[in-house]
């Protein structure tokens, strides 16, 4: 029954040219040329939504810590890697630097977690600020800090980000 329901739902989505949906996990990165709605949940993590206003394409990262310290894999779990990779992915897909704009979210200081001690949220906010400034990419919208988690839905075609605050459950 559920399968039939989902098939019908998908059929309507395809016929109505709905954007594809994608759930972005912490430490991952997603880019799409075709319209896509990328969803993610943020706590002390930060997401940079990069959008090309000319080609109407975009990508989003979700990093958990500010810097890669050389230990383990150089994955987009770290801000300096995640932001650099996101910019490179867009540039290698035909975007021009001057057409790129960014929207940034997250970096909450969630209580009852070790975040408070190390202030990961604050450091995650700092790294995106510095790197986007260095890369000369304008930040046209942001919702950073505070003590609540965030749920984001980013449309890579329109560049619009829907956001709502969420209570902390199991978000990073």
């Amino acid at each position, binding site marked *: 029954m559920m399968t039939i329901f989902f098939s019908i739902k998908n059929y309507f989505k395809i016929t109505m040219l709905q954007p594809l949906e994608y759930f972005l996990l912490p430490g991952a990165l997603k880019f799409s040329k075709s319209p896509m709605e990328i969803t993610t949940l943020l706590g002390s993590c930060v997401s940079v939504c990069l959008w090309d206003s000319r080609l109407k394409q975009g990508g989003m990262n979700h990093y958990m810590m500010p810097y890669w310290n050389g230990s*383990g894999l150089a994955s987009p779990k770290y801000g300096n890697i995640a932001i650099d990779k996101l910019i490179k992915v867009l540039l290698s897909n035909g975007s021009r630097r001057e057409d790129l704009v960014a929207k940034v979210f997250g970096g909450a200081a969630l209580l009852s977690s070790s975040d408070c001690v190390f202030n990961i949220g604050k450091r995650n906010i700092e790294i995106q600020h510095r790197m986007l400034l260095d890369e000369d990419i304008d930040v046209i919208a942001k*919702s950073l800090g505070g003590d609540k988690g965030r749920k984001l*839905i980013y449309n890579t075609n329109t560049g619009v980000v829907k956001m709502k605050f969420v209570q902390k459950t199991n978000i990073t």
Partner: protein
Amino acid sequence: MIMNGDELIKKEKEITELHNTINALNSKLTESESLKSNFISNIMNEVYNPFSSIISMADNILSLNENKLHNAIPMAEIIYREAAQLDFHLQNIFVAATIEAGLEGVELSIANLNNIMESVVKKFKFDINNKNIKIVTNLSLDLHVSITSDAKKITLVLLNLLSNSIKNSPNNGEIKIHFELIEDELNIAISDQGSGISETEMKIIFDRFKKIDETINSVKGGTGLGLSVVKAIIEILEGNISFSKDNGTKVILNIPNMENNHSRFGFDDDDILFDQELF
């Protein structure tokens, strides 16, 4: 802005700390770059050697006379062993590259640990036989363990950990693999009778391209990617990994059951964005 003496001392201390951190980071990154160069030479050995063996063994089989076809069996065994090694190293390299590109997701399925263990042990059966290693596990026909997680990723984690244990085990040694499902978490403990990992080595085991035995005469091989891949996968699966020295090395994995975690990987239509804001 005028600062008093105490504030100046505090700022100076902060600057010194920052300076030390940057220096430490810099040397770590320089080391990481040089390890990357070593990786190329390691990988040449790990890829070329199995390929050469496979090609020459296949060539030998092709030139066998019809009445000596029974000689093909040991050669086919070598081909299987070398191809399995090659497959294992390539999987690690590709998964590491996908994780570094941020493209590795979670494919949820029912991971049957009995089947996974069977396939993992089969991959190393020749090494296990060569060293006469005994694999002891609590899984049996009566004890089936399954968990909702990413079966492919768990398989690669176990391949890496078992490969390390086999390499480090003495001949005629024993490797114990214990599975336990407690509430919503799968605990796996793998212990071998090797020389164990020292405190100093413990700090570098997850570094990519880093091998504990990097001496030129090392016969243990490997790309130096294994444990960094294992750690990254375990983090993606929202689990934990820890090591301890216990008459050898003991690795403990905690992998959560993701059965009740579907909402994190899917989309809930009832989730109305009641206080949504548009940016």
